[in-house]
């Protein structure tokens, strides 16, 4: 599986991708979670580079954030403060949650070499005024991107970028489906690494590699016998030790509602006269993510449906430590999975965690209770 190995290598060393892009004369824009209009960056001929924290200890960031802020923000800020992201031409920072709201100001105060592009969406993203607000913000961001790129970006270029991103979204879903029946060939860590690589490389190239892996898997007999089928939900689930525990307990991820993985892939941008309006409309459609205002609490309903469709034995709610939106969501989600009689285990994860004893015991016990 050459293509899979290439994707894994990219995920293992994203900074090498960043250096290589910059060396080839490409400008790179950091993209923080969630739902930034990165298609605009791509349309301007620059590389969008995902910033979802890293497995590391954060020290300097504690001058800007208290300890009880999620590790995605701490470790991303830490990398910025240490100059590890100085190759970026700018960083897009949205205001999707209370903790992210302070990120732009913290970044500006501490990271002198990388300017911030603030990203605001309408909280009421589904109403007409909300869609119009998001569209106008995206157009404003387009101007900032054009300034960095030193050229204008046409609607045609945005449409092309959207097509490439839409193809990538479909490729991620197809790969996830193929991986669901091939745990012997694609471990939980491989699955995550293959999807995650897209955050650091050209999306068209990512699609090509992913499609290659999917085609290879589809030609192999299923290898999921004896595995427990699991659906994951949460913000991020890329901790190698967590994924290793999932594998060790003979569990296979059959679908995910993880913001870092398939949530973004599940919704394509419709074709439209005004491509930026279409991007705002797509944002109004997305369900299943705690940072998007959801008065109907559809996340739980979607999760139950996903679990039923995939024939899942259980759900892992992977809670990012100190993430308020996720903690608020947990209760209604748990009520819905309980009433659908789908077992769900909550485990708490932190990128600065070194001891996995508790999640290991909990996942093992969960697997034992499901068998």
């Amino acid at each position, binding site marked *: 599986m050459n293509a899979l190995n290439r994707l894994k290598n990219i995920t293992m060393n994203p900074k090498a991708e960043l250096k290589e892009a910059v060396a080839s004369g490409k400008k790179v824009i950091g993209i923080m979670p969630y739902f930034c209009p990165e298609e605009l960056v791509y349309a301007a001929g620059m590389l969008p580079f995902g910033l979802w924290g890293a497995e590391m200890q954060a020290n300097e960031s504690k001058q800007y954030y208290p300890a009880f802020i999620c590790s995605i923000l701490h470790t991303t800020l830490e990398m910025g403060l240490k100059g590890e992201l100085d190759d970026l031409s700018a960083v897009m920072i949205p205001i999707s949650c209370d903790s992210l709201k302070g990120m732009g100001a913290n970044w500006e105060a501490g990271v002198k070499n990388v300017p911030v592009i603030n990203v605001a969406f309408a909280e009421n993203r589904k109403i007409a005024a909300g869609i119009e607000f998001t569209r106008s913000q995206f157009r404003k961001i387009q101007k900032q991107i054009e300034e960095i790129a030193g050229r204008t970006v046409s609607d045609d270029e945005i449409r092309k970028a959207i097509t490439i991103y839409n193809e990538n979204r479909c490729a991620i879903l197809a790969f996830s489906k193929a991986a669901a029946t091939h745990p012997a060939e694609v471990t939980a860590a491989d699955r995550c690494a293959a999807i995650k690589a897209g955050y650091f490389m050209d999306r068209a190239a990512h699609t090509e590699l992913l499609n290659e892996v999917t085609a290879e898997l589809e030609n192999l007999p299923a290898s999921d016998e004896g595995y427990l089928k699991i659906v994951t939900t949460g913000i991020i689930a890329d901790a190698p030790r967590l994924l290793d525990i999932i594998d060790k307990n003979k569990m296979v991820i059959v679908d995910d509602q993880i913001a870092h993985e398939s949530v973004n892939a599940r919704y394509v941008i419709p074709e439209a006269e005004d491509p930026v309006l279409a991007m705002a409309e797509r944002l109004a459609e997305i369900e299943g993510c705690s940072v998007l205002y959801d008065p109907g609490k559809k996340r739980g309903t979607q999760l139950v449906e996903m679990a039923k469709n995939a024939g899942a034995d259980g759900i892992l709610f992977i809670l990012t430590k100190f993430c308020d939106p996720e903690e608020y969501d947990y209760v209604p989600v748990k009520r819905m999975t309980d009433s659908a009689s789908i077992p769900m285990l909550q485990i*708490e994860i932190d990128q600065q965690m070194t001891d996995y*004893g*508790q999640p290991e*015991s*909990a996942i*093992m*016990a969960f697997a*034992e*209770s499901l068998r």
Partner: protein
Amino acid sequence: MADVYTMGIDIGSTASKCLILKNGTDISGYAVIGAGTGTSGPKRSVEQALSNAGITINEISGITATGYGRNTFSEADWIVSELSCHAIGIHAVFPDVRTLIDIGGQDAKAIRVSTTGKLENFVMNDKCAAGTGRFLDVMARVLELDVSELAERDAMAENVVNISSTCTVFAESEVISQLSNNVNICDLVAGIHRSVAVRTAGLAKRLGIVEPVAMSGGVALNSGAARALERELGIPVRIPPLPQINGAYGAAIYAWEHRKQER
């Protein structure tokens, strides 16, 4: 037919417990050593349990390791989570128990046991030591008492003092300030027990309480803490005769059941 011995070893964070079972039913020997994973505790607990049982390791036909340090015990034939072992262990003592509250050295768990003794569901505490055995150790030290004296002091309490159940460090400073106000130590001890009980009852309620309820783990040896939990839950709580080795007992039964299947 020759007797068949199996062993269960529960390697916790602060203690190692080993139990030897004869023919799946009789406890031949057991040992509790106050040193957990990464220490000589596991080895010493095995040696002591074997010596109590009067047999050698060669006579053991199967070993199940459980607990936080389960993966470090290389002689194990099976590795099983402590939650499943606790469910098996309590089912063997009280077959009708459906909810088990286990308070160990550094964690607390509420476990739903099926009518056949299988782990059905569970909730574990978060990382803070509040509501665990460690919390009681810290408080006993502040009060210049041995943990074994806590139950007796609790029984003499008249006005239970309110102690925070959220954080061990905050609770410790609360206890210190109460001490400097000359509050009666017995009332303080009862407050500390209530604090553990509030926290643990919250955990059990998150799981949903199905009666009958039992309690295991080292803290169950402290009748003050056990009474406080009963008061907090408003229902009786049963304690097995050997609460601290319930996990090791379940592990030894697991080994017996699996050897039996192989025969």
